[in-house]
């Protein structure tokens, strides 16, 4: 998955997230067109009917569920807005939520808000910590009975891109985790 955030001169904005789900998707290549095919239908494995273990079969034309959250937050009163989205499969929502909190609630600047290591909760309710996550906080959470995931995620693929406008000032940041870099003028 990749995300692009754009802010135009008139204040219009676009958050766009595009995806090949798992790295290289279905790993199927069309040599005549040069196109790699995604494995989107794998996301159907996520659907479930509350209280049932049965996963209903796919329906032609159905769109599988997705973690993609290209979002725009607008503060009309103060003339500010945050154009944000992320990549990284099920980490996307954890990463975007924590970036929004860091920026809008905790007063981080945009670079710090994106760079701050995240935590994630997996399907078993265990906590997974991104490398460099604050050790003291981690210890404090364990003291409160938050169980840590036994199997450490091999790699954290979360990457957030965002543009923040505050009056006449525009800040654009791409995640260094993926060697990104924003541009503006």
């Amino acid at each position, binding site marked *: *998955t*990749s995300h*692009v955030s*754009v802010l*135009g001169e008139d204040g*219009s904005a676009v958050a*766009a997230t*595009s*995806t*090949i789900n*798992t790295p290289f*998707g*279905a*790993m199927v290549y*069309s*040599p*005549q*067109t040069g196109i790699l*095919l995604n*494995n*989107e*239908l*794998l996301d159907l*494995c*996520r659907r479930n*009917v509350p209280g049932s273990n049965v996963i209903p*079969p796919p329906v*032609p*034309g159905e*769109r*599988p569920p*997705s973690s*993609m959250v290209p979002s725009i*937050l607008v503060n009309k*009163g103060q003339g500010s807005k945050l154009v944000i989205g992320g990549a990284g499969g*099920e980490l996307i929502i*954890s990463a*975007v939520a924590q970036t929004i909190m860091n920026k809008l*609630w*905790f007063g981080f600047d945009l*670079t710090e808000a994106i760079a701050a290591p995240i*935590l994630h*909760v*997996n399907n*078993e*309710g265990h906590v997974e910590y991104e490398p460099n996550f604050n050790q003291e*906080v981690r210890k404090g959470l364990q003291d*409160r*009975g*938050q169980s840590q995931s036994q199997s450490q995620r091999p790699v954290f693929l979360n990457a957030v891109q965002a*543009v923040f406008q505050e009056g006449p000032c525009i800040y*654009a*940041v*791409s995640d260094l985790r*993926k*060697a990104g870099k*924003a*541009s*503006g*003028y």
Partner: protein
Amino acid sequence: MAWGQRATVCLVLLGVGLGLTIIVLAVVLSHHQASCGPGAFTRAAVAADSKICSDIGRAILQQQGSPVDAAIAALICTGVVNPQSMGLGGGVVFTIYNASTGKVEVINARETVPASCDQDLLNQCRNSLPLGTGTQWIGVPGELRGYAEAHRRHGRLPWAQLFRPTIALLREGFHVPSVLSQFLNNSILWRSLNSSTLRQLFFNGTETLRTQDPFPWPALANTLETVATEGAEALYTGRLGRMLVEDIAKQGSQLTVQDLAAFQPEVVEPLEMPLGNYTLYSPPPPAGGAILSLILNVLKGFNFSAETVARLEGKVNMYHHLVETLKFAVGQRGRLWDPSSYPGIQNISQDFLGEDLAQRIRQQIDGRGDHHRLSRYNLSRVRGNKMG
């Protein structure tokens, strides 16, 4: 002589005026720069996950392109620079804010289930994780018709102009970026890549391509040129679509040209949720906006702030509430059904953005994380995939 003196005086006054203007401008700009802090821009910006694609997006804005034009151009570029992450064989979701109308809309062009899909497909879930390789998992690609719809509704520059920078990138000697090389040489991925048809693209003999190896990718450059001149229909109802279907049918895919022709992006209202002085606009199900909104909706009720997390205890407390909220959110993820395919399924969005569920979740969060069974969070034991 008098005329000469008058001319001299005028010139001097003009010079002084000019000097003053320059000084005032310099003060204003430096003041602005100072008030905005380092690294700020003053007019527009693009944040993509590579500098080269951010630059391509910015150039489109400077050519008076719209933000949607810039986003499309940056995405086309990213499909080349980070092909492990996205491309024309995937799907895209746009959230678009129009400053002159204040309106926001979502264009969902994620892939759909093909007409002939194996009804037992989902019995393969467990054995296919975590990579999900194979033609059985291929949906109907939505990427290009998503771009076309976004461009039709919000584009300003000619369609072909959005493709030119990436075509030039490929034609003028493209080399393997470092991030792509890391993925190609990842031990978990290498085996699958080596036994897949991607081998012909990413391997040099027995070795995968390395950073800075030449990577011309002529087949994609030709496709981009065809799409630039003929439009997205070259893939959805034209020659490119037939070639694509023909290629992957040889690998077992059941995708048909009828599937491609029938694909339609959805243009829908965003989810809209107050978040302090902000309004959060995010994509509705089956995208993840309802889950993101639920998380922030619950947490905003605890009024965390820079002051409350300044000390370690306050930070631990905030993250404890975040973890508990994430547990409830993960438990709800299975409810992101596609409302157009399951009209009977209850629309979860109002629930997730409302105050009742948020308040009920807040009341269930106490000081411990280990006093409660997983069923309380509706957490399944089934290990699902890492949906993208």
